[in-house]
């Protein structure tokens, strides 16, 4: 048998021989000659837009509106407005919109986060004019009829509420946001089925909210894989009907303040503990962006990025004796605040024991007891994660849109990478110390008989 090394080199030779001239001439994804990774921005009579011309046959076009749950004036409005996307307009019915986009092979979707409402269309590059017109029509000409609300939107909303109620992790995440930020960012992402939303929802209110949400100054059009000149031409042509805002609703939210506290919710299907701490705002916010927090999140970690190994992260090592508890650390960055949170889910007794180990590990980092090596690994992981998120179209598009609306600044991933590179070990330790100095936000969902209180695991709330 041939040795592995010789096979490898032979395989290599074979591939070398097969490389044809044609494949050299085709442009790869990151070829420097074509397109750009940086967003180009522009302004068309008050509507901000940005595009980056990634080489490739498809385009993703989004309208990002600063109308997520943080800015909704009444509960459930962001959710309903999201579900009203691509419903009938004064020019065509929702069925027609669906069939036309099917014919062109497009994919339409809408979602909302705590800060933004995103309408998204993915399609073949040459269909840019059609989908730009469609999105322009959706934001200015949707009819918001009562029968669509009753027959379609409310039904979907109720199904979603059931899904939310069945998911302890989403409940815990909503709860920890509510504890940390109270109103504004603390508004639940989706209202639970016990929230009295029906008295707030009627088509007139929704239409008024849509005028405020899709006002010129409140939206940004962001495209991936479209040339800037094309996009500016079509945005200029099809977004002329976008409104100037609403007299009734003013979509503003006071700047976020961190509170902290504890909430416990009994639940029968799953156990989740979320330990939240004040984090850093997103990159596009400017001065309050603290890259060391994302390094700290990577350092704490909990999930391994390679198979069959607990990985280097501190929390995965802390919880390795409790295989039925799953630990992960996330950092949710918003425009003026952030939340660093550790989620521990799984079997109740394992979650309870893992929790105290997690807090001990946190205290160790805060005391400065962490290897320089680990911080280097964490910096590399944080940089990779940030750059990857910026490269993936979805997150990058939303971040760019919200950056454009609030600061007039696009999400430039190179600068984030540079910012993370500058993080030093001291900064990370200082950030960790600050975490434990402030009050924690602790949310427990599941078997409350077993899940610990914050004071039992050594956190101050």
């Amino acid at each position, binding site marked *: 048998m041939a040795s592995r090394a010789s096979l490898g080199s032979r395989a290599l030779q074979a591939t070398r021989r097969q490389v044809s001239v044609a494949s050299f001439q085709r442009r790869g994804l990151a070829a420097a000659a074509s397109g750009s990774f940086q967003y180009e921005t522009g302004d068309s009579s008050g509507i901000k837009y940005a595009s980056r011309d990634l080489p490739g046959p498809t385009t993703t076009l989004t309208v990002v509106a600063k109308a997520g749950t943080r800015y909704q004036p009444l509960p459930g409005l962001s959710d309903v407005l999201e579900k009203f996307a691509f419903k009938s307009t004064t020019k065509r*019915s929702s*069925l*027609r919109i669906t*069939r036309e986009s099917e*014919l062109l092979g497009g994919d339409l979707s809408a979602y909302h986060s705590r800060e933004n409402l995103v309408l998204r269309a993915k399609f073949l590059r040459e269909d840019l004019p059609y989908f730009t017109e469609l999105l322009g029509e959706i934001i200015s000409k949707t009819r918001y009829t009562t*029968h669509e609300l*009753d027959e379609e939107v409310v039904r979907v909303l109720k199904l979603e509420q059931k899904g939310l109620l069945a998911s302890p992790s989403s409940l815990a995440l909503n709860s920890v946001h509510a504890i940390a930020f109270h109103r504004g960012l603390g508004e639940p992402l989706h209202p639970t089925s016990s929230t009295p939303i029906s008295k707030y929802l009627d088509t007139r209110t929704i239409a008024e909210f849509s005028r405020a949400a899709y006002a010129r100054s409140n939206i940004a059009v962001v495209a991936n894989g479209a040339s800037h000149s094309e996009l500016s031409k079509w945005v200029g042509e099809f977004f002329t009907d976008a409104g100037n805002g609403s007299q009734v609703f003013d979509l503003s939210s006071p700047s976020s303040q961190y509170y902290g506290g504890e909430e416990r919710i009994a639940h029968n299907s799953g156990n989740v503990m979320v330990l939240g701490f004040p984090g850093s705002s997103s990159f596009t916010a400017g001065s309050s962006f603290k890259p060391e927090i994302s390094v700290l999140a990577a350092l704490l970690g909990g999930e391994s990025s390679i198979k069959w190994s607990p990985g280097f992260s501190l929390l995965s090592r802390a919880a390795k004796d409790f295989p039925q508890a799953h630990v992960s650390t996330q950092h949710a960055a918003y425009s003026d605040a952030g939340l660093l949170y550790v989620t521990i889910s799984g079997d109740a007794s394992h979650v309870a024991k893992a929790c105290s180990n997690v807090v001990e590990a946190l205290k160790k980092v805060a005391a400065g007891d962490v290897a320089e090596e680990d911080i280097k690994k964490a910096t590399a992981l944080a940089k990779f994660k940030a750059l990857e998120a910026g490269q993936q179209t979805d997150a990058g598009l939303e971040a760019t849109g919200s950056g454009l609306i609030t600061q007039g600044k696009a999400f430039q991933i190179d600068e984030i990478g540079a910012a993370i590179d500058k993080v030093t070990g001291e900064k990370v330790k200082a950030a960790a110390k600050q975490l434990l100095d402030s009050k924690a936000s602790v949310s427990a969902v599941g078997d409350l008989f077993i899940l610990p209180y914050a004071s039992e695991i050594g956190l101050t709330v």
Partner: protein
Amino acid sequence: MSAPSLAPYILKRPWLKRWMVPFANWYADAAGYRRLGLRADDLIPEENDTVQLALKRLSPKESYDRVFRLRRAFQCSLAHQLLPLEEQTKPEEDYKYLSPIIAEIEAELKERADLESVIVERKK
């Protein structure tokens, strides 16, 4: 369901409209449903999916009033009575509250049928 109607043809021609409107008013009044407190749209047969859906789309107030009018009319019919003059439907109250919704639903259905059978020709 909406019945075939000559009304659009007549309304487009002012001279014909001048002739027909007094006759139409007389006919609607002579039909007698107004004496029982009904409206013309109350007489649309409701035993089909289209009208059932349209009835669901009525506002709660319209829907309640419709049921009230129908029950009052049944009662009058059983008792072989007409309503007192002040309770009878006045011509200005006899407006279309249901047929626009029916027309909208029919347009939706027609559009769906058209799109189901459409043959797409791409520009070469």
